[in-house]
């Protein structure tokens, strides 16, 4: 078995240890003897995403998001949308998440167009939502808690879309409706940095399994010893969630 990870715009969207998510996906495959290839997908990418099993988009600064937004609109958008409709697994964090929505409107009023696969829109605010975050989620029939660190000033609102989870501590999508992230088909958008996958191995494995299933049909992942990851997660939940 082989998993091909597409790291989208690694030179433009690479904030806050996002690379840790790629490291986690890679390692969790290697430990199971699943072959992994990481392809860098940047402005010069010419394929149509049929060569990719799992796509990752991180966050970037405003200027970099503008470059990405233009590239999606003018070049990659159509093919990417087709691949997503066909079931491509995508993890999009923070800026990458915002870019999959309909648009991002800055405080000053300018609008940055998104890919529009998520029925969600983001509006700039003058309050930075920053800090540790704990959510409860129910993905692929599994119920578990996730921990991370959020750092965004954009408030995201979902329009009849399923959130990734419910906020226990922190702000999540907008600091108002207790939702965090968004799920559409096999696309997962979230504000959780940390990075999110090493400390939430259940989520990492769901992504790997979903991506491999699309390619190979039935797939069962060998369980790994995640006691260190769970210990880390539990110690953080204990610290941040006051009873």
């Amino acid at each position, binding site marked *: 078995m082989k998993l091909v990870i597409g790291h989208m715009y690694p*030179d*433009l969207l690479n*904030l*806050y*240890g*996002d*690379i*840790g998510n790629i*490291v*986690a996906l890679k*390692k969790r495959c290697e430990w199971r003897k699943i072959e992994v290839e990481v392809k860098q997908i940047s402005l010069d990418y010419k394929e149509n995403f049929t060569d990719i099993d799992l796509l990752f988009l991180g966050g970037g*600064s*405003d*200027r970099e998001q503008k470059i990405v937004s233009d590239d999606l609109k003018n070049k990659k958008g159509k093919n990417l949308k087709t691949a997503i409709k066909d079931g491509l697994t995508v993890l999009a964090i923070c800026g990458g998440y915002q870019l999959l929505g309909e648009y991002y409107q800055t405080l000053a009023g300018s609008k940055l167009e998104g890919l529009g696969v998520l029925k969600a829109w983001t509006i700039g605010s003058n309050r*930075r939502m*920053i*800090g*540790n975050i704990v959510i409860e989620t129910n993905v692929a029939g599994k119920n578990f808690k996730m921990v991370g*660190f959020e*750092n965004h000033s954009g408030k995201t609102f979902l329009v009849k879309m399923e959130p990734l989870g419910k906020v226990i501590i922190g702000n999540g999508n907008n600091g108002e409706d207790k939702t965090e992230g968004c799920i559409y088909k096999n696309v997962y958008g979230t504000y959780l*940095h*940390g*990075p999110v996958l*090493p*400390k939430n191995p259940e989520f990492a494995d769901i992504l790997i399994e979903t991506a491999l299933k699309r390619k190979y049909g039935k797939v069962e992942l060998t369980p790994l010893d995640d006691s*260190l*990851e769970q*210990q*880390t997660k539990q*110690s*953080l939940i204990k*610290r941040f969630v006051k009873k």
Partner: protein
Amino acid sequence: MVKFLSVNIGKLVNLSCKIAGKGGTSLPGKIALSADPNLIKKLISLIKGNKVMITGTNGKTTTSGLIASILSANGKKVVYNKEGANMKTGLATALIKSSNFFGNLQKDAVVFEVDEATMLIIIEEVQPNIVVITNFFRDQLDRFGELDMTVEKVKKALLTLPQDSIVLLNADEPFTASIGDEIKSKVFYYGIEDNIEGINSFSFEQKYCPVCGHRYEYKRVYYGQLGDYYCPNCGKKRPNPHFKATNIFLNEEGINFDLHYKDKVFTIKSKLIGLYNVYNLLTAISTGILLNIEFNTISKTVENYLPIEGRLQKTKIKNKKAIINLIKNPIGFESTLNMLSQFNKPLNLLISINDNYADGRDVSWLWDVNLESFLSKTKVNYIVTSGLRAEDMAVRLKYAGFDIKKIKITNSAEKAIDMIAELTKEELIAILPNYTSLYDINKYFKIQEAKK
């Protein structure tokens, strides 16, 4: 006559802090500033000339320490925030400690290391003659937002300087160098021109040409995004430095290099270690030359200068050799690891990571450190992780391929030091704490010292 009552209040607080056994690096200033918000400006206005401000992500503390020593050796009485408390309250504290009870500042030179985010306020108060910028890296992101914003803030602050002031910039760091295009002050650049092997780094911060937006390319990378870069599209390139370091020689004892300025070549020797200290030395010496200090005075000071507490400090734990070095961001962490692997000796590590306000609450940056490369080329027997984020660090090590059976986790600094000593036979111990962890580690050594 008591000039400034607030100084007096601050001094009393300083005294009571000493009695209470706390460092008191910012509390006296905090209280004095609340009594008189214009305190810094009033005290500083008494000093004419020789006012140096240093900012940037890495190297501030060592560079300002060197500059302060150079000025002292030149016969100046220097006020300097050497405890590294670089917010407004820390500066006020340094000034209060240098004043007598009558509010007279008994000094004639100022060396301030200043936080990037507070530059605008502090420049207004200090009116420096020289502003030195080391580099910009991602650091404590949850406090400053994004790197571009930090650079913009600093640029905005520099635009308020009088035109006869000097700004000294790192030519090799594209974010820092780009500032020189837009300010009105007299700009000088420094940089390395040597074919020394650079550091293979994750924390490369891609920079785009400010003229045409094309991606910069590199003829040479020294560390992070520092190197000899150019724009292949419009031809913009690294500015030609006024101060250049060539013939660099590095080992675990120290650094030698040649410094070129105008048509002169000076030989520099130092006991500091590692490539990033070449930048610190180059920056400090260039500042000394710009302050018209004689070269002999500068070179003697530099040669005798020893690292400050927690900056590559050598020590012993239960008779075992140890080295302590502060790590506070990916590039600092990577350069420390790079230097350790150059020693070619088996190592045991103690890595202590806190997430207090001063550290930055977000520890995601641990994943931006190329631990994989370090672990693949270095013999490391055990690693103890400690601090509030001991577990996070352990997970990072697991995913970097380190055997988890050889990782020990404890949140207590004291227990961590005992553990690492217990585990160590012949290995060199390297203790790598982040900012507030360094305080916990130092406390341990102070208690040990007191027991003797």
